[in-house]
C-alpha cells in the first residue's frame, strides 16, 4: 500500500479507501480527449493516484483534508470524472477524494424553491427527483448522465437551457465547502457585502472542496413551444439570436448550427429509438481518415457561400417553456422577429427531434477514436461585437489542422458562446519526427490545433472557455486570458484558501517556476508531471 494511503487508512479506519489497481486506473484521468489518444496508444492509467477515499459526510471530508494539510499530502477532489480539460491528473503521491457517497438532499424548501444538496449527487437522478415534486433545476449539461453537482460547480458548468435558467453560477445561493486547512465554511450569496461564492465556483478543486450547494429551483414547465428556422448563413442566424435576446425573449433552448452541422441535424444521424447510429457521419473510417488529411481545403469549401448554399444554410432550433400560452406567445414574437431577418420557418420538427435526442451526441466520440481519428470540442465566448472575429479567427486556426464545424447554444443579451466541434487525424510532413507512430502523430495534430485555436480566441478578444473550464489543458494559456495581474490574483486566492497548496496542485494555473510546463504545448506538460 502506498505510504500516504496507508497513513490515511490508519487515521480513518471507518472511511472506505482503496489502493486496488483497477480503482487507481479508473481514477487516473478524466475525459480529456487527449487522454483517449494516450489510452489508444496503450498508455492506460499513466497517472495513477496513491489511492482513493470515499468520505460520506462533510465532517469526514474536513478531517481528511486536515490530515492531508498536516502531512502535506496532495488531494484531488473527484465527482464523476466527466471533465474534458485534464482537471484530474493524479500522481503517485496523490489521494483522490471521491464525493459520490455524499448524495443527500439536506433541505428542500418548496416555498422558497431552494434545495440544499450534497456535492456527489448525480445530475440526472437529481432532475428526475425534482420533476416528481413539480420542480426543475433547469440545468441540463450534455454530461448530465455522468456528472455531479460538485463537478458542475467546480467547472462553471452550463446546461442546454442556459438561455432561460442561466449557468450553474446563476443558480447557487450558498455553498458549503472545506478549505485546504480542513475548515468547513458556509458561503452565502450576498448583495451588499462580500460574496465569495463566485470565487469558489469555477476554481476546479484548487481553492476548496465543495460538499454541498443550495440551488435555486423553478416550477417544472407545463407547456413548451417548438420551432426550427433556417437562415442563409451562420451570421444571419446569430444576428437573429442577438435580436431575440436583446428584445428580452428568453428561450430555454436556442441552438444555431452552422451549415454542415445543420445538414447533419436535418439528415438525422441519430436513430429514432435514441441510439446513436455509431461511426462517423455517413462515411467510412478509411475514407474519413483520407479526407481529414486535407482539412483546410474542405473547411474552406464548406464554410464559404457555395458550401452554405449547397448544405441548405444554417439552422436555429428554439424551445420556449413555461406555463399556459406564454411559451407559444414568446415563440410567435420570436418568429415575427426572425422573419424580418431572412429566416425560413421549418416547423416544429427540428426542435422536437433535438429534444428527443438531446444527450445522444456525447456518444459519438468513441467510434471516432475507434476509427483511428480523434475529436474534441472548444467552447469560446465573446461579446456580440467580437463574435465575427472570434468565429472567423478560431475557425480558420482550427481549420488548418482539423475538420471543424460549429454551433452556438448559449446566448445572452451581451454575447454568445461558440462551440466548435472538430475531428482530425495523424500529422504528416517534414516537421513530423521520423518513426513517430500513428497516435503520436495524432497528438501532434491535436496539439497544433489547440495551440492555434487558443491563440486565435485571445487575439479576437474572446475567452478561452465558456463552460468546460481550464484544467491542465488550458492552464499554460491563463496568463493570456487573465493577464499577469489576474494570474497573480488567482495564486493569492489559492494561498488564502489553501496555504499549503494541497488541493489539486498543478490544476488551473501552471506551477510557479521551476515548472514542468512550457508555454503552450501539451506533451511536455503531461509527461514531465508524471512521476
Amino acid at each position, binding site marked *: 500500500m502506498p505510504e500516504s494511503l496507508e497513513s490515511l487508512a490508519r487515521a480513518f479506519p471507518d472511511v472506505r479507501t482503496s489502493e486496488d489497481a483497477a480503482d487507481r486506473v479508473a481514477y487516473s484521468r478524466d475525459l480529456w480527449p487527449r487522454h483517449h489518444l494516450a489510452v489508444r496508444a496503450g498508455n492506460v492509467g499513466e497517472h495513477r493516484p496513491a489511492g482513493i477515499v470515499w468520505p460520506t459526510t462533510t465532517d469526514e471530508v474536513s478531517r481528511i483534508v486536515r490530515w492531508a494539510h498536516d502531512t502535506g499530502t496532495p488531494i484531488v477532489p473527484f465527482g464523476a470524472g466527466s471533465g474534458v480539460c485534464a482537471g484530474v491528473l493524479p500522481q503517485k503521491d496523490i489521494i483522490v477524494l471521491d464525493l459520490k457517497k455524499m448524495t443527500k438532499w439536506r433541505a428542500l424548501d418548496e*416555498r*422558497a*424553491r431552494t434545495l440544499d444538496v450534497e456535492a456527489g449527487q448525480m445530475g440526472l437522478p437529481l432532475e428526475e427527483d425534482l420533476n416528481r415534486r413539480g420542480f426543475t433545476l433547469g440545468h441540463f449539461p450534455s454530461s448530465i448522465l455522468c456528472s455531479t453537482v460538485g463537478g458542475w460547480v467546480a467547472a*462553471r*458548468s*452550463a446546461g442546454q437551457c442556459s*438561455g*432561460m*435558467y442561466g449557468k450553474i453560477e*446563476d443558480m447557487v*445561493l450558498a455553498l458549503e465547502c472545506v*478549505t485546504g486547512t480542513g475548515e468547513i*465554511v*458556509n458561503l*452565502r*450569496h*450576498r*448583495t*451588499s*457585502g*462580500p460574496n*465569495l461564492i463566485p*470565487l469558489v*465556483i*469555477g476554481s*476546479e478543486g484548487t481553492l476548496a472542496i465543495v460538499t454541498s450547494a443550495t440551488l*435555486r429551483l423553478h416550477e417544472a414547465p407545463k407547456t413548451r413551444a417548438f420551432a426550427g428556422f433556417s437562415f442563409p448563413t451562420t451570421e444571419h442566424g446569430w444576428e437573429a439570436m*442577438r435580436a431575440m*435576446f*436583446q428584445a*428580452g*425573449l428568453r428561450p430555454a433552448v436556442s441552438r444555431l448550427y452552422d451549415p454542415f452541422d445543420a445538414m447533419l441535424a436535418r439528415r438525422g444521424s441519430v436513430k429514432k429509438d435514441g441510439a446513436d447510429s455509431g461511426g462517423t457521419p455517413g462515411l467510412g473510417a478509411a475514407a474519413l481518415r483520407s479526407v481529414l488529411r486535407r482539412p483546410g481545403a474542405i473547411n474552406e469549401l464548406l464554410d464559404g457561400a457555395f458550401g452554405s448554399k449547397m448544405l441548405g444554410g444554417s439552422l436555429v432550433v428554439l424551445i420556449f417553456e413555461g406555463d399556459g400560452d406564454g411559451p407559444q406567445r414568446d415563440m410567435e414574437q420570436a418568429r415575427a422577429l426572425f422573419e424580418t431577418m431572412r429566416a425560413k420557418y421549418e416547423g416544429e420538427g427540428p426542435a422536437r427531434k433535438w429534444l428527443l435526442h438531446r444527450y445522444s451526441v456525447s456518444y459519438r466520440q468513441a467510434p471516432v477514436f475507434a476509427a483511428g481519428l480523434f475529436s474534441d470540442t472548444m467552447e469560446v*465566448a465573446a*461579446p*456580440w*461585437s*467580437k463574435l465575427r472575429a472570434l468565429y472567423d479567427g478560431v475557425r480558420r486556426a482550427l481549420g488548418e489542422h482539423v475538420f471543424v464545424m460549429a454551433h452556438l447554444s*448559449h*446566448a445572452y*443579451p*451581451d*454575447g454568445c*458562446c461558440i462551440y466548435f466541434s472538430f475531428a482530425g487525424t495523424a500529422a504528416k510532413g517534414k516537421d513530423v519526427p521520423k518513426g513517430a507512430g500513428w497516435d503520436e502523430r495524432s497528438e501532434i495534430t491535436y496539439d497544433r490545433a489547440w495551440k492555434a485555436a487558443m491563440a486565435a480566441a485571445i487575439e479576437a*478578444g474572446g*475567452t*478561452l*472557455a465558456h*463552460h*468546460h473550464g*481550464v484544467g491542465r489543458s488550458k492552464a499554460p494559456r491563463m496568463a493570456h*486570458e*487573465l*493577464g499577469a*495581474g*489576474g494570474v497573480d*490574483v488567482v*495564486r*493569492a486566492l489559492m494561498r*488564502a484558501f489553501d496555504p499549503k497548496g494541497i488541493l489539486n496542485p498543478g490544476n488551473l*494555473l501552471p506551477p510557479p517556476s521551476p515548472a514542468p510546463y512550457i508555454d503552450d504545448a501539451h506533451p511536455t506538460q503531461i509527461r514531465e508531471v508524471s512521476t
Partner: protein
Amino acid sequence: MSSTATTRTATTTPSTADSIEIDPQSLLVSVPAGKTLDALETALAARGFTLGVALDLAGPRDAATGSAGGITIGDWLANGAPGAASVFADPADHLLAGLEATLPDGQRLEIRPGPRRAVGPDLTALAIGTQRRLASVELAWLRIHRRDARRPAMPLPEGVDLDPPVSAEEARLVDAIARELAKR
C-alpha cells in the same frame, strides 16, 4: 459582517468627464469609476439606453444637487451595486461584464468584457460589495438596455434572504484574501 471585512479604504472622486464608450451591438458601456450614476444614466438616455437601475436605491443623493444617483460608479460597485436588479431575476443576464481595477498592492487587474466564462474564479467578485478591500474598480463594463426593451423577470420567492450577515468564517477568508493580495 466583521469590522475588518467592511473597512472602506477610499472613495472615488466624482468626475464629469464624458468618457463613456458604448458597444451598441453588445449593449455594453465602459464607464470610468469616477462618473456618477445619474451622469451615466443621462448620457445613456440621450442615446436611447438605460442602465435599468433604481437610482433612488443606489446610494445617498448628491449633496449639491439633491439628485438621486449622485454616487460614483466606483463607490456604487464597492457597495454591492444597490438598486440593480437581483442576479437571480434574469439568470441569462448580468450587470458587470468586465472591469479594470487596482489591487491592494497597486497591481492592475483587467477582466475583458464577456458574457460568461469558465476560466477559474470569477475575479469580478473581488470588486463588488467589498468596499475596496480586495480591488478598486477604475473602469467598468456594464450591461445596458434599450429603453423600450422588455425586461424578463423570474424573481426569487419572497423570504429568500439575499443579504445575510457575513459569518465569522467568511470574514476570516476575506481577511486572508486581503492579506495575500497585499503581500504579493
